[in-house]
């Protein structure tokens, strides 16, 4: 019997478990597809990285840490654009979403944002003791409530819901950009954003609500991608989207609590 015939008859190995075709089929069916469990694990890992770097920047304050935090924020911003893309009104996608970049950019994003969050949180805590615990707790409380509402079907994200949230998020983003430009030229801030008046607090409440509703879209991305058997890297993409919204929600809740405490 020639080698070719022998291979055809018995395969490369007699053991069916390690026979190449059987092994490869198993790998492709179980490893290539996204799962809910995988997305949860990646979210936990990203949260761990963020908390670790936030702890470092909280404990080692100084000019060097400020520089590291600024670099971290920039790295996080670039990672976000490389993964989620950049959309602008009337122009369309300036940078298209590239979810396949997420396995590389998600850990950088988590680490970078951790540094800046640690710095912001430490400064908030020095003015208002106990505020960080309250903000973290409220963030998880809001996220869990919305997750429960999503999983049970109380909140159903539709096309109109998505457009509404997207428009509101863009509106907030543009307001922040306008405020930044205004403060650069005049040296003062928009009181509607930074003040502690009723309108400013109402604005913060609205922003917190929009940030929280963005979580529903993230849950839907993760759920639907897992359902449709999306590629494995979508686990990282979903985790990164969820982390980005959680970080935004945390910062907005922190800002709201600071406004309330300063009255």
């Amino acid at each position, binding site marked *: 019997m020639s080698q070719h015939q022998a291979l055809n008859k018995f395969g490369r190995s007699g053991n069916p478990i390690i026979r190449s*075709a059987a092994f490869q089929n198993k790998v492709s069916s179980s490893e290539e597809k996204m799962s809910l469990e995988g997305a949860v694990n990646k979210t936990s890992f990203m949260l761990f990285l963020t908390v670790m770097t936030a702890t470092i920047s909280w404990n080692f304050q100084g000019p060097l840490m400020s520089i590291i935090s600024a670099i971290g924020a920039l790295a996080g911003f670039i990672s976000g654009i490389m993964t989620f893309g950049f959309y602008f009104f009337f122009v369309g996608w300036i940078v298209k*979403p590239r979810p396949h970049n997420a396995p590389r950019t998600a850990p950088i994003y988590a680490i970078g944002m951790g540094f800046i969050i640690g710095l912001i949180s430490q400064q908030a805590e020095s003015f208002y003791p106990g505020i960080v615990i*309250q903000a973290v707790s409220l963030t998880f409380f809001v996220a869990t409530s919305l997750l429960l509402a*999503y999983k049970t079907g109380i909140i159903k994200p539709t096309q109109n819901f998505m457009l509404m949230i997207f428009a509101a998020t863009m509106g907030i983003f543009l307001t922040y950009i306008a405020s930044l430009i205004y403060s650069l030229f005049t040296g003062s801030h928009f009181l509607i954003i930074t003040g502690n008046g009723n309108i400013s607090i109402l604005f913060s409440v609205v922003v917190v609500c929009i940030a929280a509703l963005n979580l529903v879209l993230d849950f839907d991305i993760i*759920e639907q991608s897992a359902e449709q058997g999306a*590629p494995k890297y979508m686990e990282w993409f979903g985790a990164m989207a969820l982390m980005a919204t959680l970080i935004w929600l945390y910062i907005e809740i922190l800002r709201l609590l600071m406004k309330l405490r300063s009255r």
Partner: protein
Amino acid sequence: MSYLTLFLGLIGILSAFLFFYLLKFKASSKQTNRGNRIRWNSYIPYKEKKPNKVKNKESEDTSFKDN
């Protein structure tokens, strides 16, 4: 530490555990079986991996030459 902070901290820990626990479960059929769902794959382009490696391995097996 005030009682409010302590109470909120406790709620936060419980919420965080519940959040990661619930995230693992599939959504109810009320959520998944409806016609007006957002079609995320039309907004987020999945780059499907080409099964080149598997094909190459299989072709390695079949293109074994007799001596």
